[in-house]
């Protein structure tokens, strides 16, 4: 027994007295260290409060109320499409980050000759260990994500899940599907092969066709009136910087709203 005063807030004495295991001691030490500086206990309490308020009581869903679970089971697999598009997005993000180690968006040089971007893709496909597989996974997860997103939209439409309290999420979904297509478009411009170049040409034409601000828009998005090295640079930054932040945030909001409003059940 020491002569030092032990009050309610003497956590170390409390730890000695309780004789925790080593794991518990380590965990508590870290928790206390963080809590002393950040007061995370307050935030944990808020989270806990939120969790219980959301989960304790919910109205019976239509299917529960009228015992329809066994009647509409065939809708349920379609309810996985939203998760599948998120999963494909995660797979694409991981494989894309790995591809980013080897890719460089340089397109300067005489036309017809392989540029730096093109050569880094051929390097990935021929030299890097599992590089071909990595590019394949990235490309396929993107394709699968777009397909899943389209089917997800159809499911939401045909089960009437966009109806009244959920209009906002429908609108966010439309923004997300457009951004997904933009993701795909900026992505397939990156190899800077013939397809990329001429797809870029179509994009520039579309931007130029906007009345009044067409030329300004083409300059802003494509950095010129024909596909050029600046175009590739811009598509790269859109693809690996702007779109990931925006799309990830919007997906988080989209899912948070689903969590708050509950899943629109088939009935």
């Amino acid at each position, binding site marked *: 027994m020491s002569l030092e005063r032990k009050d309610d807030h003497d956590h170390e004495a409390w730890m000695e007295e309780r004789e925790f295991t080593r794991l518990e001691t380590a965990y508590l030490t870290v928790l206390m260290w963080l809590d002393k500086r950040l007061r995370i206990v307050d935030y944990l309490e808020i989270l806990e409060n939120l969790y219980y308020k959301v989960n304790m*009581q919910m109205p019976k869903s239509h299917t529960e109320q009228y015992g329809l679970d066994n009647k509409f089971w065939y809708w349920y697999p379609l309810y996985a499409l939203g998760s599948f598009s998120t999963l494909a997005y995660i797979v694409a993000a991981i494989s894309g980050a790995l591809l980013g180690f080897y890719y460089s968006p340089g397109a300067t040089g005489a*036309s017809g000759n392989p540029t730096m971007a093109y050569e880094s893709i051929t390097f990935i496909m021929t030299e890097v260990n599992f590089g071909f597989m990595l*590019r394949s996974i990235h490309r396929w*997860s993107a394709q699968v994500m777009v397909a899943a997103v389209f089917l997800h939209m159809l499911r939401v*439409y045909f089960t*009437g899940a966009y109806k*009244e309290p959920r209009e906002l999420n429908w609108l966010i979904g439309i923004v997300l599907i457009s951004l997904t297509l933009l993701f795909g478009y900026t992505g397939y411009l990156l190899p800077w092969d013939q*397809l990329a170049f001429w797809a870029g040409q179509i994009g520039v034409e579309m931007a130029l066709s906007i009345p009044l601000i067409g030329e300004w828009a083409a300059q802003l998005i494509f950095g010129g009136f024909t596909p050029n090295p600046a175009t590739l640079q811009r598509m790269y930054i859109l693809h690996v910087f702007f779109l990931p932040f925006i799309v990830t945030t919007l997906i988080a909001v989209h899912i948070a709203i689903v969590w708050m409003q509950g899943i629109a059940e088939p*009935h």
Partner: protein
Amino acid sequence: MTEDTDTTEARADGGGTGIVPPDDETPTWSERKARKQGLARTTYEYFERARREDQQLRQESDYVERDVLGFPAWPHETIRNLALTSFFVGAIVFLSATLPPHIDAPANSGVTPPTILPDWYLYWSFGLLKLGPLNPDLALLGGQKLMADRTFGVLANLVVVGAIAIVPFLNKGSARRPVEQPFWASVGVFGVILSITLAVLSVKNLFPMDSHLTFDLTFLVPFVGAFITYAVLKSMREGYMFELNRRYYRLRPPK
């Protein structure tokens, strides 16, 4: 604090009903409201109303205690989700292993390739760019077109996206399943078929069909599909609703 009020009735001002008990110093919404003026006060008054509404809903019979009836997150849900996730990721890996992508010749501004096509998911949008023949030329302007064909095509894209966006503001009510709302289901089928026919229109050079016929069919086929859907659902509807109503009235017999 107003302790003299009936304590058996749950309070609905954020003070008493929380599952995690607030400590003594946490002001209730009524107390916070009392200190506010203007808009802030109106906000708290609304919070109180919303809380009361919530409380009433909770006391109604069709509320369930999820904590008791819920399906455990661990291990049931977690293992099911892990299984689904690994199956799905495995499917992607399988696809990438069996159907690897290829790469074209390097970009060359001097050589236009015979076919220029985007990825498949942009075909519908690419098809919309080819709607030039629909662009009206105005006699008022001496047969001039009001906007260039390419502007018309880009505008068509915006119109499609806008049309999808306003659906929830046009279609209200509690009907959910296609049989309950044949009109909106046929609108949906119209959209799906139109996106496919537009995709065909975008590859019309490669399609073994007269290009004028393709153009006409692009807009005819969706209407045909929509009419068939409408007719089928309309005739299914009576039987479906009969079943549903019988179920409903068995559970809740009319008074």
